Protein backbone atom coordinates (compact mmCIF):
# COMPACT_ATOMS: atom_id res chain seq x y z
CA UNK A 1 0.00 0.00 0.00
CA UNK A 2 1.31 3.43 -0.89
CA UNK A 3 2.24 5.70 1.99
CA UNK A 4 -0.33 8.33 1.02
CA UNK A 5 -3.11 5.76 1.44
CA UNK A 6 -2.12 5.29 5.04
CA UNK A 7 -3.89 8.41 6.23
CA UNK A 8 -6.98 7.26 8.11
CA UNK A 9 -9.83 9.72 8.33
CA UNK A 10 -11.79 9.19 11.51
CA UNK A 11 -14.77 10.99 13.02
CA UNK A 12 -15.40 11.44 16.73
CA UNK A 13 -17.88 13.13 19.05
CA UNK A 14 -16.54 15.30 21.90
CA UNK A 15 -16.95 12.87 24.79
CA UNK A 16 -14.52 11.40 27.29
CA UNK A 17 -14.58 8.09 25.43
CA UNK A 18 -13.26 9.56 22.18
CA UNK A 19 -9.96 9.22 24.07
CA UNK A 20 -8.64 6.11 22.26
CA UNK A 21 -8.62 7.93 18.91
CA UNK A 22 -7.24 11.18 20.31
CA UNK A 23 -4.55 9.44 22.37
CA UNK A 24 -3.58 7.17 19.46
CA UNK A 25 -2.79 10.28 17.45
CA UNK A 26 -1.38 12.56 20.17
CA UNK A 27 0.89 9.87 21.63
CA UNK A 28 1.90 8.52 18.25
CA UNK A 29 0.44 5.01 18.47
CA UNK A 30 -0.81 5.50 14.91
CA UNK A 31 2.61 6.25 13.39
CA UNK A 32 4.08 3.35 15.38
CA UNK A 33 1.93 1.12 13.16
CA UNK A 34 2.69 2.98 9.96
CA UNK A 35 -0.39 5.13 9.43
CA UNK A 36 -1.65 8.47 10.64
CA UNK A 37 -5.02 9.46 11.97
CA UNK A 38 -6.72 12.49 10.49
CA UNK A 39 -9.33 13.19 13.18
CA UNK A 40 -12.53 15.14 12.66
CA UNK A 41 -14.67 16.38 15.51
CA UNK A 42 -18.37 16.16 14.69
CA UNK A 43 -21.43 17.67 16.35
CA UNK A 44 -23.95 14.87 15.84
CA UNK A 45 -24.09 11.08 15.63
CA UNK A 46 -26.12 11.51 12.46
CA UNK A 47 -23.11 13.27 10.89
CA UNK A 48 -20.83 10.43 11.99
CA UNK A 49 -23.19 7.89 10.43
CA UNK A 50 -23.58 9.80 7.15
CA UNK A 51 -19.91 10.66 6.71
CA UNK A 52 -18.85 7.08 7.40
CA UNK A 53 -21.56 5.90 5.01
CA UNK A 54 -20.48 8.01 2.04
CA UNK A 55 -16.79 7.43 2.67
CA UNK A 56 -15.75 10.85 4.01
CA UNK A 57 -14.53 8.84 7.02
CA UNK A 58 -12.70 5.50 6.96
CA UNK A 59 -13.70 4.72 10.53
CA UNK A 60 -15.44 6.34 13.46
CA UNK A 61 -16.03 6.50 17.20
CA UNK A 62 -19.55 5.08 17.35
CA UNK A 63 -22.25 4.28 19.83
CA UNK A 64 -22.28 0.48 20.06
CA UNK A 65 -25.83 0.16 18.63
CA UNK A 66 -25.04 2.28 15.56
CA UNK A 67 -23.37 -0.37 13.38
CA UNK A 68 -26.27 -2.71 14.19
CA UNK A 69 -28.80 -0.05 13.24
CA UNK A 70 -26.89 0.57 10.01
CA UNK A 71 -26.93 -3.14 9.16
CA UNK A 72 -30.69 -3.20 9.80
CA UNK A 73 -31.15 -0.12 7.60
CA UNK A 74 -32.77 1.75 10.49
CA UNK A 75 -32.87 5.53 10.47
CA UNK A 76 -31.82 5.54 6.85
CA UNK A 77 -30.38 3.04 4.40
CA UNK A 78 -26.63 2.86 4.78
CA UNK A 79 -23.66 0.82 3.73
CA UNK A 80 -23.18 -2.18 6.03
CA UNK A 81 -20.98 -1.20 8.98
CA UNK A 82 -19.09 -3.61 11.25
CA UNK A 83 -17.59 -3.32 14.73
CA UNK A 84 -14.19 -5.08 14.81
CA UNK A 85 -13.33 -3.75 18.27
CA UNK A 86 -14.83 -2.05 21.28
CA UNK A 87 -13.33 1.26 22.40
CA UNK A 88 -14.65 1.54 25.95
CA UNK A 89 -16.92 0.16 28.67
CA UNK A 90 -19.08 2.06 31.17
CA UNK A 91 -18.83 5.86 31.26
CA UNK A 92 -22.50 6.83 31.23
CA UNK A 93 -24.58 8.14 34.09
CA UNK A 94 -28.09 9.30 34.84
CA UNK A 95 -28.26 12.85 36.17
CA UNK A 96 -31.36 14.67 37.42
CA UNK A 97 -32.13 18.35 37.98
CA UNK A 98 -31.90 19.86 41.46
CA UNK A 99 -35.71 20.04 41.51
CA UNK A 100 -36.24 16.41 40.56
CA UNK A 101 -33.54 15.38 43.03
CA UNK A 102 -35.51 17.09 45.78
CA UNK A 103 -38.73 15.35 44.69
CA UNK A 104 -36.94 12.00 44.63
CA UNK A 105 -35.54 12.63 48.10
CA UNK A 106 -39.02 13.49 49.35
CA UNK A 107 -40.27 10.20 47.90
CA UNK A 108 -37.46 7.98 49.18
CA UNK A 109 -34.28 9.62 50.48
CA UNK A 110 -32.60 6.28 51.28
CA UNK A 111 -33.06 4.98 47.74
CA UNK A 112 -31.59 8.18 46.29
CA UNK A 113 -28.66 7.98 48.70
CA UNK A 114 -28.00 4.37 47.70
CA UNK A 115 -28.05 5.37 44.01
CA UNK A 116 -27.95 3.04 41.00
CA UNK A 117 -30.87 0.64 40.60
CA UNK A 118 -32.35 1.68 43.96
CA UNK A 119 -32.73 5.29 42.79
CA UNK A 120 -35.14 4.15 40.06
CA UNK A 121 -37.76 3.30 42.68
CA UNK A 122 -37.60 6.86 44.03
CA UNK A 123 -38.05 8.19 40.53
CA UNK A 124 -40.98 5.83 39.96
CA UNK A 125 -42.64 7.17 43.10
CA UNK A 126 -42.19 10.74 41.79
CA UNK A 127 -43.78 9.71 38.48
CA UNK A 128 -46.79 8.24 40.31
CA UNK A 129 -47.20 11.27 42.58
CA UNK A 130 -47.02 13.67 39.66
CA UNK A 131 -49.61 11.67 37.70
CA UNK A 132 -51.92 11.62 40.70
CA UNK A 133 -51.58 15.38 41.17
CA UNK A 134 -52.29 15.90 37.47
CA UNK A 135 -48.86 17.43 36.85
CA UNK A 136 -46.98 17.28 33.56
CA UNK A 137 -45.01 14.03 33.10
CA UNK A 138 -41.25 14.28 33.55
CA UNK A 139 -39.13 15.02 30.48
CA UNK A 140 -35.93 12.99 30.29
CA UNK A 141 -33.16 13.41 27.76
CA UNK A 142 -30.75 11.09 26.01
CA UNK A 143 -28.44 11.55 23.07
CA UNK A 144 -29.54 9.34 20.18
CA UNK A 145 -32.21 6.73 19.53
CA UNK A 146 -29.60 4.01 18.84
CA UNK A 147 -27.50 4.55 21.93
CA UNK A 148 -26.67 2.63 25.08
CA UNK A 149 -27.88 5.76 26.90
CA UNK A 150 -31.36 5.27 25.51
CA UNK A 151 -31.41 1.59 26.47
CA UNK A 152 -29.78 2.17 29.90
CA UNK A 153 -32.30 4.84 30.82
CA UNK A 154 -35.22 2.75 29.55
CA UNK A 155 -34.07 -0.39 31.38
CA UNK A 156 -33.56 1.57 34.60
CA UNK A 157 -36.99 3.21 34.38
CA UNK A 158 -38.80 0.00 33.42
CA UNK A 159 -37.12 -1.93 36.24
CA UNK A 160 -39.09 0.25 38.67
CA UNK A 161 -42.34 -0.02 36.70
CA UNK A 162 -42.05 3.22 34.70
CA UNK A 163 -43.02 2.81 31.04
CA UNK A 164 -40.52 5.00 29.19
CA UNK A 165 -42.89 5.51 26.24
CA UNK A 166 -45.98 6.41 28.21
CA UNK A 167 -45.15 7.54 31.73
CA UNK A 168 -42.40 10.03 30.88
CA UNK A 169 -41.49 12.14 27.88
CA UNK A 170 -38.22 10.86 26.46
CA UNK A 171 -36.40 13.25 24.12
CA UNK A 172 -33.05 13.62 22.38
CA UNK A 173 -30.81 16.48 23.49
CA UNK A 174 -27.26 16.97 22.15
CA UNK A 175 -24.77 16.35 25.03
CA UNK A 176 -23.24 19.84 25.18
CA UNK A 177 -26.75 21.32 25.61
CA UNK A 178 -27.83 18.98 28.41
CA UNK A 179 -26.48 20.87 31.43
CA UNK A 180 -28.04 24.07 30.11
CA UNK A 181 -31.35 22.27 29.44
CA UNK A 182 -31.39 21.01 33.05
CA UNK A 183 -30.82 24.50 34.34
CA UNK A 184 -33.52 25.97 32.10
CA UNK A 185 -35.98 23.25 33.13
CA UNK A 186 -36.40 21.90 29.59
CA UNK A 187 -35.41 18.47 30.85
CA UNK A 188 -35.75 17.02 34.36
CA UNK A 189 -32.97 14.48 33.92
CA UNK A 190 -30.85 12.72 31.34
CA UNK A 191 -28.60 9.81 30.56
CA UNK A 192 -25.38 10.82 28.84
CA UNK A 193 -21.71 9.91 28.65
CA UNK A 194 -19.04 11.66 30.67
CA UNK A 195 -17.92 14.37 31.10
CA UNK A 196 -21.38 15.87 30.66
CA UNK A 197 -22.76 14.45 33.92
CA UNK A 198 -19.82 15.85 35.84
CA UNK A 199 -20.18 19.16 33.99
CA UNK A 200 -23.81 19.42 35.19
CA UNK A 201 -22.75 18.60 38.76
CA UNK A 202 -19.83 21.04 38.59
CA UNK A 203 -22.14 23.82 37.42
CA UNK A 204 -24.55 23.02 40.24
CA UNK A 205 -27.46 22.11 37.95
CA UNK A 206 -27.59 18.35 38.43
CA UNK A 207 -27.18 15.34 40.71
CA UNK A 208 -25.87 11.97 39.48
CA UNK A 209 -28.33 9.32 40.68
CA UNK A 210 -26.90 6.30 38.85
CA UNK A 211 -23.72 5.45 36.97
CA UNK A 212 -23.54 2.79 34.32
CA UNK A 213 -21.08 0.78 36.35
CA UNK A 214 -23.62 0.70 39.17
CA UNK A 215 -26.27 -0.64 36.78
CA UNK A 216 -24.15 -3.04 34.74
CA UNK A 217 -20.39 -3.08 35.42
CA UNK A 218 -18.24 -3.49 32.28
CA UNK A 219 -21.13 -2.88 29.95
CA UNK A 220 -20.72 -1.98 26.26
CA UNK A 221 -20.46 1.65 25.24
CA UNK A 222 -18.43 2.78 22.20
CA UNK A 223 -17.07 0.76 19.30
CA UNK A 224 -14.92 1.37 16.28
CA UNK A 225 -17.20 1.42 13.24
CA UNK A 226 -15.90 0.70 9.71
CA UNK A 227 -17.69 -0.07 6.46
CA UNK A 228 -17.84 -3.79 5.86
CA UNK A 229 -16.59 -3.32 2.29
CA UNK A 230 -13.70 -1.10 3.43
CA UNK A 231 -12.65 -3.71 6.02
CA UNK A 232 -12.56 -6.36 3.28
CA UNK A 233 -10.55 -4.10 0.96
CA UNK A 234 -7.93 -3.03 3.51
CA UNK A 235 -7.53 -5.83 6.06
CA UNK A 236 -3.88 -4.95 6.85
CA UNK A 237 -4.62 -1.30 7.48
CA UNK A 238 -7.59 -2.24 9.66
CA UNK A 239 -5.34 -4.54 11.71
CA UNK A 240 -2.89 -1.69 12.23
CA UNK A 241 -5.71 0.64 13.29
CA UNK A 242 -6.92 -1.94 15.82
CA UNK A 243 -3.37 -2.41 17.14
CA UNK A 244 -2.80 1.32 17.54
CA UNK A 245 -6.15 1.84 19.26
CA UNK A 246 -5.62 -1.15 21.54
CA UNK A 247 -2.25 0.22 22.64
CA UNK A 248 -3.79 3.66 23.15
CA UNK A 249 -6.43 1.98 25.33
CA UNK A 250 -3.73 0.17 27.33
CA UNK A 251 -1.96 3.49 27.84
CA UNK A 252 -5.25 5.10 28.92
CA UNK A 253 -5.87 2.43 31.55
CA UNK A 254 -2.59 3.17 33.35
CA UNK A 255 -3.81 5.32 36.26
CA UNK A 256 -0.77 7.61 36.09
CA UNK A 257 -1.52 8.45 32.45
CA UNK A 258 -5.01 9.66 33.12
CA UNK A 259 -3.87 13.14 34.19
CA UNK A 260 -2.10 13.64 30.91
CA UNK A 261 -5.14 12.23 29.11
CA UNK A 262 -7.36 14.78 30.84
CA UNK A 263 -5.06 17.62 29.77
CA UNK A 264 -5.04 16.43 26.15
CA UNK A 265 -8.79 15.80 25.99
CA UNK A 266 -9.64 19.15 27.59
CA UNK A 267 -8.25 21.01 24.56
CA UNK A 268 -10.91 22.87 22.58
CA UNK A 269 -10.43 20.80 19.41
CA UNK A 270 -10.94 17.58 21.37
CA UNK A 271 -13.65 17.60 24.06
CA UNK A 272 -13.31 21.25 25.03
CA UNK A 273 -14.32 21.17 28.70
CA UNK A 274 -12.40 21.77 31.94
CA UNK A 275 -9.68 19.28 32.86
CA UNK A 276 -11.41 18.91 36.21
CA UNK A 277 -14.66 17.57 34.76
CA UNK A 278 -12.68 14.99 32.76
CA UNK A 279 -10.45 14.03 35.66
CA UNK A 280 -13.37 13.08 37.90
CA UNK A 281 -14.58 10.18 35.74
CA UNK A 282 -11.00 9.37 34.67
CA UNK A 283 -9.79 8.98 38.25
CA UNK A 284 -13.08 7.53 39.46
CA UNK A 285 -13.54 10.24 42.08
CA UNK A 286 -17.07 11.23 41.11
CA UNK A 287 -19.09 13.84 42.89
CA UNK A 288 -22.79 13.06 42.79
CA UNK A 289 -23.78 16.58 43.81
CA UNK A 290 -26.84 17.65 45.80
CA UNK A 291 -25.22 16.60 49.09
CA UNK A 292 -25.23 12.92 48.08
CA UNK A 293 -22.17 10.83 48.98
CA UNK A 294 -19.34 10.88 46.43
CA UNK A 295 -18.54 7.79 44.40
CA UNK A 296 -15.14 6.11 44.32
CA UNK A 297 -15.18 3.92 41.23
CA UNK A 298 -11.93 3.15 39.41
CA UNK A 299 -14.06 1.53 36.68
CA UNK A 300 -16.15 4.63 35.95
CA UNK A 301 -14.77 4.35 32.43
CA UNK A 302 -12.72 1.39 31.21
CA UNK A 303 -10.62 1.44 28.03
CA UNK A 304 -8.70 -1.83 28.05
CA UNK A 305 -8.96 -3.90 31.23
CA UNK A 306 -11.65 -6.58 31.53
CA UNK A 307 -11.34 -7.39 27.81
CA UNK A 308 -12.75 -3.93 27.13
CA UNK A 309 -11.58 -3.94 23.50
CA UNK A 310 -13.03 -7.35 22.67
CA UNK A 311 -16.18 -7.11 20.53
CA UNK A 312 -18.40 -9.48 22.50
CA UNK A 313 -21.16 -10.81 20.27
CA UNK A 314 -23.27 -11.14 23.40
CA UNK A 315 -23.10 -7.34 23.70
CA UNK A 316 -24.50 -7.08 20.20
CA UNK A 317 -27.28 -9.52 21.09
CA UNK A 318 -28.20 -7.48 24.14
CA UNK A 319 -28.32 -4.26 22.10
CA UNK A 320 -30.43 -5.96 19.41
CA UNK A 321 -32.80 -7.25 22.09
CA UNK A 322 -33.29 -3.69 23.34
CA UNK A 323 -34.08 -2.51 19.82
CA UNK A 324 -36.76 -5.19 19.69
CA UNK A 325 -38.01 -4.44 23.19
CA UNK A 326 -38.60 -0.78 22.41
CA UNK A 327 -40.11 -1.29 18.97
CA UNK A 328 -37.23 0.19 16.95
CA UNK A 329 -37.34 -2.90 14.77
CA UNK A 330 -40.52 -4.87 14.14
CA UNK A 331 -39.77 -7.23 11.25
CA UNK A 332 -38.46 -10.46 12.77
CA UNK A 333 -34.97 -11.73 11.87
CA UNK A 334 -32.25 -14.09 13.15
CA UNK A 335 -30.61 -12.22 16.05
CA UNK A 336 -27.40 -14.29 16.29
CA UNK A 337 -26.84 -14.08 12.55
CA UNK A 338 -27.05 -10.28 12.70
CA UNK A 339 -24.77 -10.12 15.77
CA UNK A 340 -22.22 -12.26 13.94
CA UNK A 341 -22.23 -10.11 10.85
CA UNK A 342 -21.75 -6.85 12.77
CA UNK A 343 -19.43 -7.81 15.66
CA UNK A 344 -16.17 -9.34 14.38
CA UNK A 345 -14.09 -10.89 17.16
CA UNK A 346 -12.08 -12.85 14.57
CA UNK A 347 -10.68 -9.64 13.08
CA UNK A 348 -9.82 -8.39 16.58
CA UNK A 349 -8.04 -11.60 17.56
CA UNK A 350 -6.02 -11.63 14.34
CA UNK A 351 -5.08 -7.97 14.74
CA UNK A 352 -3.86 -8.20 18.33
CA UNK A 353 -2.07 -11.55 17.93
CA UNK A 354 1.35 -9.86 17.48
CA UNK A 355 0.76 -7.72 20.59
CA UNK A 356 0.96 -10.78 22.87
CA UNK A 357 -2.48 -10.20 24.30
CA UNK A 358 -4.83 -13.01 25.21
CA UNK A 359 -8.31 -12.10 23.99
CA UNK A 360 -11.19 -14.36 25.04
CA UNK A 361 -11.70 -17.62 23.12
CA UNK A 362 -15.46 -17.36 23.40
CA UNK A 363 -17.52 -14.90 21.36
CA UNK A 364 -20.45 -14.85 23.79
CA UNK A 365 -20.83 -14.51 27.53
CA UNK A 366 -23.80 -14.48 29.84
CA UNK A 367 -24.46 -11.58 32.17
CA UNK A 368 -25.45 -11.61 35.80
CA UNK A 369 -24.76 -15.33 36.25
CA UNK A 370 -21.10 -15.60 37.32
CA UNK A 371 -20.64 -15.01 41.07
CA UNK A 372 -20.01 -11.38 41.86
CA UNK A 373 -21.31 -10.16 38.49
CA UNK A 374 -24.09 -7.62 38.50
CA UNK A 375 -26.56 -6.95 35.74
CA UNK A 376 -29.31 -4.41 36.32
CA UNK A 377 -29.86 -5.39 39.94
CA UNK A 378 -30.05 -9.17 39.80
CA UNK A 379 -31.34 -9.71 36.26
CA UNK A 380 -29.62 -12.28 34.08
CA UNK A 381 -28.99 -12.33 30.35
CA UNK A 382 -28.29 -15.40 28.27
CA UNK A 383 -27.40 -14.35 24.71
CA UNK A 384 -28.73 -17.67 23.39
CA UNK A 385 -32.14 -16.88 24.85
CA UNK A 386 -32.65 -13.18 24.18
CA UNK A 387 -36.34 -13.50 23.34
CA UNK A 388 -36.96 -15.43 26.55
CA UNK A 389 -35.28 -12.58 28.43
CA UNK A 390 -37.61 -10.07 26.74
CA UNK A 391 -40.69 -12.17 27.42
CA UNK A 392 -39.90 -12.12 31.13
CA UNK A 393 -39.86 -8.31 31.22
CA UNK A 394 -43.33 -6.84 31.73
CA UNK A 395 -42.76 -3.45 30.09
CA UNK A 396 -42.04 -3.16 26.38
CA UNK A 397 -43.25 -1.17 23.39
CA UNK A 398 -46.82 -1.83 22.39
CA UNK A 399 -47.13 -4.00 19.29
CA UNK A 400 -43.81 -5.81 19.69
CA UNK A 401 -44.49 -9.33 18.45
CA UNK A 402 -42.09 -11.47 20.46
CA UNK A 403 -43.68 -14.68 19.15
CA UNK A 404 -42.74 -13.73 15.60
CA UNK A 405 -39.15 -13.11 16.72
CA UNK A 406 -39.15 -16.39 18.65
CA UNK A 407 -39.96 -18.25 15.43
CA UNK A 408 -36.86 -16.82 13.79
CA UNK A 409 -34.66 -17.52 16.80
CA UNK A 410 -35.07 -21.15 17.72
Amino acid at each position, binding site marked *: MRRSERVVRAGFIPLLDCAPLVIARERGFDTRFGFSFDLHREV*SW*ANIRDKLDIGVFDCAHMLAPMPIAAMLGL*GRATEPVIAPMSLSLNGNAITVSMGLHQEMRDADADAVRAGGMAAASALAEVVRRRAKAGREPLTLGMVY*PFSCHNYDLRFWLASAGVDPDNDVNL*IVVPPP*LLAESLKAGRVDGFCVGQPWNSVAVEQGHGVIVATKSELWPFSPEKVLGVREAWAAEKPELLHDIIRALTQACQWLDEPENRYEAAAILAQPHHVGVTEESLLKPLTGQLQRGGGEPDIVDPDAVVFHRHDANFPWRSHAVWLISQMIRWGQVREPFDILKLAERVYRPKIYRAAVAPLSLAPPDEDYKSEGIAPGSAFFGGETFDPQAAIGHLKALPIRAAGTDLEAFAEHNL
Partner: protein
Amino acid sequence: MPKSNPNIPDSDLKILVIDETPIRLAILEAGLKEAGFFDVTTLDTASALVERIYALDPDVILIDLENPSRDVLEQMFQVSRAVRRPIAMFVEQSDKATIEAAIDAGVSAYIVDGLKKERVKPILEMTVSRFRAFDRLRTELEETKSALKERKVVEKAKGILMKSRGMSEDEAYGLLRKTAMSQGKRLVDVAEGLISTFELLKD
Protein backbone atom coordinates in the same frame (compact mmCIF):
# COMPACT_ATOMS: atom_id res chain seq x y z
CA MET B 1 -27.23 20.85 -13.44
CA PRO B 2 -29.21 20.53 -16.70
CA LYS B 3 -32.94 20.39 -16.33
CA SER B 4 -33.97 17.50 -18.55
CA ASN B 5 -37.42 17.52 -17.06
CA PRO B 6 -38.78 21.05 -16.92
CA ASN B 7 -41.39 20.20 -14.31
CA ILE B 8 -43.15 23.10 -12.71
CA PRO B 9 -41.96 23.63 -9.15
CA ASP B 10 -44.32 22.52 -6.43
CA SER B 11 -45.01 25.87 -4.89
CA ASP B 12 -47.27 24.17 -2.37
CA LEU B 13 -44.53 22.06 -0.76
CA LYS B 14 -43.96 23.11 2.81
CA ILE B 15 -40.24 23.52 3.41
CA LEU B 16 -38.57 24.08 6.76
CA VAL B 17 -34.98 25.30 6.83
CA ILE B 18 -33.00 25.08 10.09
CA ASP B 19 -29.69 26.91 10.04
CA GLU B 20 -27.98 28.90 12.77
CA THR B 21 -25.97 30.87 10.19
CA PRO B 22 -28.33 33.76 9.39
CA ILE B 23 -26.67 34.84 6.13
CA ARG B 24 -26.73 31.35 4.67
CA LEU B 25 -30.31 30.95 5.83
CA ALA B 26 -31.28 34.13 3.97
CA ILE B 27 -29.41 33.06 0.83
CA LEU B 28 -31.15 29.70 0.77
CA GLU B 29 -34.58 31.14 1.50
CA ALA B 30 -34.19 33.63 -1.35
CA GLY B 31 -33.05 30.84 -3.68
CA LEU B 32 -35.98 28.62 -2.86
CA LYS B 33 -38.45 31.45 -3.37
CA GLU B 34 -36.85 32.42 -6.67
CA ALA B 35 -37.25 28.80 -7.77
CA GLY B 36 -40.94 29.02 -7.02
CA PHE B 37 -41.14 27.42 -3.57
CA PHE B 38 -43.18 29.92 -1.65
CA ASP B 39 -44.01 28.01 1.49
CA VAL B 40 -40.61 28.28 3.17
CA THR B 41 -40.22 28.62 6.93
CA THR B 42 -36.82 29.35 8.45
CA LEU B 43 -35.55 28.67 11.95
CA ASP B 44 -32.26 30.10 13.16
CA THR B 45 -32.47 28.36 16.49
CA ALA B 46 -33.11 24.75 17.32
CA SER B 47 -34.89 25.37 20.60
CA ALA B 48 -38.21 23.55 21.00
CA LEU B 49 -37.48 21.96 17.65
CA VAL B 50 -39.80 18.97 17.91
CA GLU B 51 -42.78 21.11 18.95
CA ARG B 52 -42.16 23.55 16.12
CA ILE B 53 -41.88 20.81 13.53
CA TYR B 54 -45.06 19.27 14.88
CA ALA B 55 -46.87 22.59 14.61
CA LEU B 56 -45.57 23.29 11.12
CA ASP B 57 -45.94 19.76 9.71
CA PRO B 58 -43.42 20.29 6.88
CA ASP B 59 -42.98 18.14 3.78
CA VAL B 60 -39.26 18.76 3.60
CA ILE B 61 -36.77 19.67 6.35
CA LEU B 62 -33.33 21.03 5.50
CA ILE B 63 -30.75 21.28 8.28
CA ASP B 64 -27.08 22.25 8.22
CA LEU B 65 -24.55 19.68 9.35
CA GLU B 66 -22.96 21.99 11.90
CA ASN B 67 -26.17 21.81 13.86
CA PRO B 68 -26.05 19.38 16.81
CA SER B 69 -29.84 19.21 16.69
CA ARG B 70 -29.66 16.80 13.77
CA ASP B 71 -29.78 14.05 16.38
CA VAL B 72 -33.03 15.52 17.69
CA LEU B 73 -34.51 15.00 14.22
CA GLU B 74 -33.25 11.41 14.18
CA GLN B 75 -35.47 10.71 17.17
CA MET B 76 -38.50 11.87 15.19
CA PHE B 77 -38.31 8.83 12.92
CA GLN B 78 -38.70 6.72 16.02
CA VAL B 79 -41.48 8.50 17.82
CA SER B 80 -44.42 8.31 15.51
CA ARG B 81 -46.79 10.00 17.91
CA ALA B 82 -44.68 13.17 17.86
CA VAL B 83 -45.36 13.76 14.18
CA ARG B 84 -48.55 13.29 12.23
CA ARG B 85 -46.80 11.87 9.19
CA PRO B 86 -43.71 9.67 9.27
CA ILE B 87 -40.57 11.48 8.22
CA ALA B 88 -37.78 9.66 6.47
CA MET B 89 -34.35 10.61 5.37
CA PHE B 90 -33.91 11.07 1.66
CA VAL B 91 -33.27 7.39 1.16
CA GLU B 92 -33.68 6.48 -2.48
CA GLN B 93 -30.58 4.46 -3.33
CA SER B 94 -30.68 5.76 -6.90
CA ASP B 95 -30.07 9.20 -5.47
CA LYS B 96 -26.95 8.34 -3.55
CA ALA B 97 -25.07 10.93 -5.57
CA THR B 98 -27.52 13.62 -4.48
CA ILE B 99 -27.18 12.61 -0.83
CA GLU B 100 -23.39 12.65 -1.13
CA ALA B 101 -23.46 16.06 -2.77
CA ALA B 102 -25.65 17.38 0.03
CA ILE B 103 -23.45 16.01 2.81
CA ASP B 104 -20.38 17.26 1.00
CA ALA B 105 -21.93 20.72 0.83
CA GLY B 106 -22.79 20.56 4.54
CA VAL B 107 -26.54 20.05 4.57
CA SER B 108 -28.94 17.22 5.22
CA ALA B 109 -32.50 16.76 4.04
CA TYR B 110 -35.43 14.92 5.58
CA ILE B 111 -38.62 14.37 3.65
CA VAL B 112 -42.05 13.11 4.47
CA ASP B 113 -42.34 9.44 3.67
CA GLY B 114 -43.93 8.81 0.31
CA LEU B 115 -43.03 12.13 -1.25
CA LYS B 116 -41.82 11.47 -4.77
CA LYS B 117 -38.12 12.02 -5.18
CA GLU B 118 -38.66 14.00 -8.39
CA ARG B 119 -40.43 16.62 -6.32
CA VAL B 120 -37.60 16.90 -3.84
CA LYS B 121 -34.66 16.79 -6.22
CA PRO B 122 -34.87 20.43 -7.38
CA ILE B 123 -35.11 21.57 -3.76
CA LEU B 124 -32.01 19.62 -2.81
CA GLU B 125 -30.10 20.79 -5.87
CA MET B 126 -30.96 24.39 -5.06
CA THR B 127 -29.91 23.88 -1.43
CA VAL B 128 -26.60 22.29 -2.38
CA SER B 129 -25.76 25.06 -4.84
CA ARG B 130 -26.63 27.79 -2.31
CA PHE B 131 -24.62 26.11 0.45
CA ARG B 132 -21.65 25.93 -1.92
CA ALA B 133 -22.12 29.55 -2.91
CA PHE B 134 -22.12 30.51 0.74
CA ASP B 135 -18.95 28.50 1.30
CA ARG B 136 -17.24 30.39 -1.51
CA LEU B 137 -18.47 33.65 -0.03
CA ARG B 138 -17.14 32.68 3.38
CA THR B 139 -13.76 31.68 1.94
CA GLU B 140 -13.53 34.97 0.01
CA LEU B 141 -14.44 36.89 3.14
CA GLU B 142 -11.76 35.12 5.14
CA GLU B 143 -9.22 35.80 2.43
CA THR B 144 -10.18 39.47 2.37
CA LYS B 145 -9.92 39.62 6.14
CA SER B 146 -6.50 38.04 6.21
CA ALA B 147 -5.33 40.26 3.33
CA LEU B 148 -6.43 43.29 5.32
CA LYS B 149 -4.64 41.98 8.37
CA GLU B 150 -1.49 41.40 6.35
CA ARG B 151 -1.61 44.89 4.96
CA LYS B 152 -1.87 46.29 8.49
CA VAL B 153 1.15 44.25 9.60
CA VAL B 154 3.22 45.57 6.70
CA GLU B 155 2.08 49.13 7.46
CA LYS B 156 3.17 48.74 11.08
CA ALA B 157 6.58 47.35 10.12
CA LYS B 158 7.08 50.23 7.70
CA GLY B 159 6.20 52.68 10.46
CA ILE B 160 8.81 51.15 12.75
CA LEU B 161 11.52 51.44 10.10
CA MET B 162 10.52 55.01 9.27
CA LYS B 163 10.64 56.04 12.90
CA SER B 164 13.72 54.17 14.09
CA ARG B 165 15.83 54.42 10.93
CA GLY B 166 14.52 57.70 9.59
CA MET B 167 13.52 56.08 6.28
CA SER B 168 10.92 57.30 3.87
CA GLU B 169 7.87 55.12 3.33
CA ASP B 170 9.19 53.92 -0.02
CA GLU B 171 12.61 53.11 1.44
CA ALA B 172 11.04 51.18 4.31
CA TYR B 173 8.85 49.18 1.93
CA GLY B 174 11.85 48.57 -0.36
CA LEU B 175 13.93 47.22 2.53
CA LEU B 176 11.18 44.86 3.65
CA ARG B 177 10.70 43.62 0.10
CA LYS B 178 14.41 43.13 -0.47
CA THR B 179 14.78 41.22 2.78
CA ALA B 180 11.82 39.02 1.95
CA MET B 181 13.23 38.21 -1.48
CA SER B 182 16.72 37.48 -0.26
CA GLN B 183 15.44 35.23 2.54
CA GLY B 184 12.81 33.58 0.35
CA LYS B 185 10.07 34.59 2.76
CA ARG B 186 6.70 36.27 2.39
CA LEU B 187 6.63 40.01 2.90
CA VAL B 188 4.16 39.68 5.76
CA ASP B 189 6.40 37.17 7.57
CA VAL B 190 9.37 39.50 7.40
CA ALA B 191 7.17 42.35 8.64
CA GLU B 192 5.91 40.21 11.54
CA GLY B 193 9.46 39.20 12.42
CA LEU B 194 10.51 42.82 12.48
CA ILE B 195 7.59 43.84 14.68
CA SER B 196 8.22 41.10 17.23
CA THR B 197 11.95 41.85 17.33
CA PHE B 198 11.14 45.51 17.84
CA GLU B 199 8.68 44.73 20.63
CA LEU B 200 11.26 42.50 22.29
CA LEU B 201 14.01 45.10 22.22
CA LYS B 202 11.76 48.06 23.02
CA ASP B 203 12.34 48.13 26.76
